[in-house]
C-alpha cells in the first residue's frame, strides 16, 4: 500500500530550539495513528508541520497522489477555541468546506449539502441553528469534528480531542472515530494519555526528546505496559 503521508528526515525548530529531529515515518491509507509524547515534546508541532502551518527547517512531508494539504480535516484542541464565540453550529461546520471552495465568494449548494450530511452523520443535525456557546463540552467536540469532516473524506487530524471529555463521552467519541476509520478514513490523533483504551489506533508515533519513532500499537504496548 502506498503511503498517504510521508515524512523524510523532517527537522522542525523554533529558532535554535530543535523540537523534531530528523523524523521519518509513513502513514498508510486507512491507518489510525496515535501520536504520543510528554507535554511540550512536539506533538502539536509535528501536526502543524503536516498541515503546513509550520515550515520545517529541513526534510519534507509528501502526500499521496490524491491528497493535498487542503483536503486534510483538522480538529484543534478545544482550548484554542473561544467557548463563547457567537456562531451557530451550521456556520462553523460550513466553514470546513472552504478548502474545496477555492476563490469562491459564497458557499455552493454542494458545500451546504456536505455540511448537512456531516451534521446528520454525527447525529447533531438538530443543533444546526444552536449557538456554539450554548453547547456542552461533548457537543462542542462533535461540532469541531463535523467541521473537520466537512473539509475531508480522506485524512482527519485531531489534536487531543478527548481533553475535557468525561469517560462516557470519550468512549462514545472514540467509537465514532473507529467507525469512520473502518469506513476508510485515515486518522492521525494526538493523545495525551497512554492508557490502552486511549491508544485506539493501529499505529503509534511517539516523540521523545525530539526523536520520532513509528511502530504498531501492539509493539508499543508490549514495550511500555
Amino acid at each position: 500500500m502506498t503511503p498517504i503521508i510521508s515524512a523524510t528526515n523532517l527537522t522542525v525548530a523554533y529558532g535554535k530550539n530543535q523540537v523534531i529531529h530528523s523524523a521519518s515515518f509513513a502513514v498508510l491509507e486507512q491507518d489510525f495513528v496515535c501520536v504520543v509524547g510528554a507535554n511540550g515534546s512536539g506533538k502539536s508541532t509535528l501536526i502543524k508541520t503536516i498541515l503546513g502551518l509550520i515550515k520545517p527547517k529541513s526534510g519534507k512531508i509528501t502526500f499521496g497522489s490524491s491528497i493535498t494539504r487542503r483536503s486534510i480535516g483538522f480538529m484543534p484542541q478545544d482550548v484554542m477555541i473561544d467557548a463563547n464565540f457567537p456562531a451557530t453550529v451550521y456556520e462553523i461546520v460550513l466553514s470546513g468546506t472552504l478548502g474545496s471552495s477555492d476563490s469562491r465568494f459564497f458557499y455552493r449548494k454542494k458545500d451546504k449539502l456536505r455540511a448537512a450530511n456531516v451534521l446528520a452523520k454525527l447525529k447533531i443535525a438538530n443543533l444546526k441553528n444552536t449557538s456554539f456557546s450554548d453547547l456542552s463540552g461533548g457537543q462542542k467536540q462533535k461540532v469541531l469534528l463535523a467541521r473537520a469532516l466537512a473539509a475531508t473524506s480522506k485524512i482527519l487530524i485531531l489534536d487531543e480531542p478527548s481533553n475535557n471529555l468525561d469517560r462516557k463521552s470519550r468512549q462514545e467519541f472514540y467509537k465514532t472515530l473507529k467507525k469512520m476509520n473502518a469506513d476508510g478514513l485515515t486518522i492521525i490523533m494526538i493523545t495525551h494519555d497512554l492508557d490502552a483504551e486511549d491508544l485506539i489506533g493501529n499505529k503509534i508515533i511517539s516523540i521523545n526528546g525530539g526523536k520520532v519513532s513509528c511502530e504498531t500499537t501492539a509493539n508499543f504496548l508490549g514495550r511500555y505496559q
Partner: protein
Amino acid sequence: MSWFIEMMSYTFMQRALIVGVLVSICAALIGVSLVLRRNSMIGDGLSHAAFGAFAIASVLNLAPLWFAIPVVIAISFLVLRFNNNQKINGDALIALLSASSLAIGTIAISVVDGVNVDLNSYLFGSILSTSWSDIWLSLIVTIAVVLLYLFAHNRIFAITFDEDFAKAVGVKTGFYDALFAAICSVVVVLGMRLLGALLISSLIIFPTVISMRFAKSFRKVVLFSVIISVVNFMVGLTLSYLISAPTGATVVAVNLLVLIITLLIKK
C-alpha cells in the same frame, strides 16, 4: 423637529453626520473581527499613533490626513509583524505604541514654535474638523469594507473563529490580517478627527460587545453591530448638538448607556 432642521442646516454638521455614519459602519464591521480575536486594543494603539502622525504633520506643515494614513498603515503592519514574531507580548506592544506616539506628538507640538494646534481637538475630536476630502475617503473605504464583508464573509468568519484551521484549509490569513490592519488604520485616522484619539477605539469595540449580548450567530453579530453603531452615532451626534457637549464623548456615553441597558435586560 425644528431643532433637527436647524442642526442639519449647518454644513459642518452635514459633513460630520456623513463621515460619522460611514466611519461607524466601517468601525463596526472591522470591530467584530478585532473584538472576537481579542485584538480590541489595536484601535486604541493606532489612534494614538495617528495623534503622533497628525502632530508631526502640523509641525512639518503637511496635509494631516494624507500624512497620517500611510504612517498609521505602516505602523499597523509593524505591529502585525512584531505580533507574528511574538518578540513582544501583543498587549505590551500596543501599550508601548500608545504611550510613545502620544509622547512624540505632544513633544512635536510643544517644542516647535509657531505651531498653532489645538491639542484638545486631536485628543477629544472636533465636529468642525471634517472636510469634503474626509467624506470622499470615508465613502471609498466604506464601499471597500462592505464589499469585503459581502464577498469574503465566509473567510472572515473562518479566520475569526479559528485562524489555524482557516490557514490549514487554504485561507490566506496573512493577506486578510494585512487588509484588516490597513482598513483599521484608515478608519481610525478618519474617525479620530471627529471623535478624538482617545475615543475612536470605542466605535470599534462597543457595537460588537453590545450585539454579542443578544445575537447568537456571527452573521447577526455583524448585522446588529452595524445598526447599533450607526444609530448610536446619530443619537450621540444629535445629543451633543442639543446639550453642547463634545461629540466624541457623547457618542461614547450613548454606547455605554446602551451596553448597560443590554446588560440589565439580559443578565
